[in-house]
């Protein structure tokens, strides 16, 4: 018995360019986008792994990985700097037959077949790096084992009017999945796939290999692997998740999910000491509110210096707000310097932007979220 043998390993798909987030992801992969005052989107998934006792995580990436590489480093913040396992960034590579970029979510896993095999896992947890939620995957694994399931898919109930935006699971009384519909016009259920799968590795391995040789396939879990498994009558269960879950796929939803954190009834509790969200910690002193500063209903972080007024905002580390400036309902990313007599409302200001004195930022006409980049 080698210590390298693992019961379960996680494969985290972090390749997305996330073009709907436009300017935010011009230089960085979507999972590296800052969120919630001191995190990046991927921190939630990595922290979930760490807190669930999963110590081996492959992060699949091919789009502008520098920022993500720097952020993840050797995995120390998540206690994933392990001797065996830990976090490994898996970029596409060149084999004897030439180089291949990942063609789809399933193909990305297939290309890293050897990485998975070295741990000889019973189960593989497939995750996506661009959702905000806290979830104990070990409970989902218990459920998977109890049901003797071969593939378990985490689902969440969504409003009926949104069902056409998701992959919808139709399940029987025992939560067994009987049908899967990708963005149905007339949904039969409002259970949406969260893109979180536990597979028996042996089963998944077979389907990935078959899918790889199927020329018509999109090599995608939702479009190909899951439907093929269903078609063959593989034992598949849905696992219902209750709690905060958000796909921050657009500028508006990114803004909204940040604003969610300021609500009194917010269910994404960042203060739970038993389920900390880990991130790279900046090296900054405590934040400082001067004698002219005023802060209400906001999240602040280390290194901020506030001489002005901040209401209903999320401020990342190192933000400065000058005298007589007022910032309302906004997300201000790391190291933004806001001058004096500035007025900002309902905006996202990207990292390191400098806002000169007397600037006014707000979309008065349409009341949309304003995004300011360098």
């Amino acid at each position, binding site marked *: 018995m080698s210590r390298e043998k693992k019961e379960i390993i996680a494969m985290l798909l972090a390749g997305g360019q996330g073009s709907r987030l436009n300017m935010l992801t011009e230089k960085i992969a979507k999972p590296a986008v800052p969120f919630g005052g001191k995190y990046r989107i991927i921190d939630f998934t990595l922290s979930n792994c760490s807190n669930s006792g999963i110590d081996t995580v492959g992060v699949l990436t091919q789009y502008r990985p520098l920022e993500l590489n720097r952020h993840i480093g050797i995995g120390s913040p998540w206690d994933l700097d392990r001797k065996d396992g830990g976090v490994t960034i898996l970029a596409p590579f060149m084999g004897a037959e030439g180089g291949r970029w990942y063609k789809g979510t399933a193909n990305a896993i297939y290309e890293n077949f050897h990485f998975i095999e070295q741990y000889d896992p019973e189960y593989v947890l497939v995750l996506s790096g661009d959702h905000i939620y806290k979830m104990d995957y070990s409970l989902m694994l218990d459920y998977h084992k109890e049901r003797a399931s071969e593939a378990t898919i985490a689902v969440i109930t969504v409003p009926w009017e949104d069902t056409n935006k998701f992959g919808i699971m139709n399940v029987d009384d025992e939560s067994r999945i009987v049908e899967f519909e990708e963005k149905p016009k007339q949904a039969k259920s409002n259970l949406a796939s969260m893109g979180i799968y536990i597979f028996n590795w042996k089963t998944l391995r077979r389907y990935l290999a078959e899918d790889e040789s199927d020329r018509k396939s999109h090599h995608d879990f939702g479009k190909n692997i899951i439907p093929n498994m269903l078609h063959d009558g593989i034992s598949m269960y849905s696992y219902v998740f209750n709690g905060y879950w958000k796909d921050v796929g657009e500028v508006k939803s990114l803004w909204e999910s940040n604003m969610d954190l300021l609500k009194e009834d917010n269910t994404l509790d960042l*203060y739970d000491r038993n389920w*900390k969200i880990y991130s790279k910690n900046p090296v900054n*002193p405590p934040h*400082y509110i*001067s*004698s002219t500063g005023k802060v*209400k209903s906001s999240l602040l972080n280390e290194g901020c210096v506030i001489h002005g007024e901040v209401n209903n905002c999320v401020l990342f580390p190192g933000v400065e707000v000058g005298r007589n400036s007022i910032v309302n309902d906004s997300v201000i990313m790391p190291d933004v310097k806001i001058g004096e007599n500035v007025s900002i409302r309902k905006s996202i200001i990207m990292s390191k932007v400098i806002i000169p004195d007397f600037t006014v930022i707000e979309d008065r006409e349409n009341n949309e979220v304003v995004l300011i980049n360098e």
Partner: protein
Amino acid sequence: MPDIMGIINLSEDETAMRDIAKYRPIGAIPIAGRYRVIDFVLSNMVNIGIHNVSIFTQGKSRSIVEHLGHGKEWDLDRKKDGLFIFNPYVNPKDSTFHKGDIKNFIDQLDYIKLSKQKYVFLSRSYMICNVNLQDAFKYHKDSGADITLLYKKMQGEKDKFINCDNLTINEAGKVISVGKNIGKESNFNISMEMCFLKKSLFIDIIENSISKGETMYLKQAILQQVRKLNVNGYAFDGYLGCINSIENYYRVNMELLDIETSKELFYKNGYIYTNVKDEPPTKYTETANVTNSMVANGCIIEGTVERCVISRGVKIGKNAVVKDCVIMQKCSIEEGAVLQNVILDKNIEVSSGIELRGASKKPLVIMKNQKI
């Protein structure tokens, strides 16, 4: 990477620190919302690339060990060199305990001798500053002195460095004598108790003290050399805080509420590293009212805070009023409590309705882990 090994001697006089040094050495006292006293000198060292650092304790080392861990945050978790913590060796069989700190250095002479570096930077922890040790080291090497002592020229501020060493320095920059500052003079040179010297000389001094048996303290042993050797002073002109009494501890925290002072201390010649706690952002609610204060992460602030230093994970309830206080980590001040000129050690719960007031020159100190 400079050819220097760093040594921090935690044998410091704790008598004037009252209860906050009861279970921890001065180096482990929480300060400025998220640091421990030792973080400053340690960061100054790693910022110039020193990567062999040893810490000599007086025995009360648990809080230091917990805080520093394997030295990861200072990038000192290394295969070669790295961070070493040496406790005085106690022989349980004969139960003898040696007075003075020199025995601890004698016990570790092998480590010192086997270290590859040619120079030693020797310091204590209680002087807080952000000093460019690269420049000081260059001065030491260029001047050809045997020992270079760092000091700061003071004008006024008589009572700030009471009981510290006072250096008499001639025009050539040579240290003529070392006395004690008793607060009488207005212009004086305060020793930062940091010095550069060759490792071979350092070993000589320790070995000498064994063979002669006169000195029990390393400091004595070094000061005896002042007349014999060429001892120079190097003037530092930045912010210097001195944590040798509870009054000075309070004063330094309050001085850091000046944003220019704290920018200098935390950024000027490199960052100050500390143990990270993965705390979430600090949340200010609708009822929060905070001015002129320094607040670390992980707090939930619903009350009024003025001129305070608030550490990580503190909760301040609605209608609580906290003024001119230093609040250490994980304290909870409940609705309607009132505090002024108070130092709360960590993990104290102040119940609703309680009022605690100290004086601005004599802050009230509350010992850790209490419910009041």
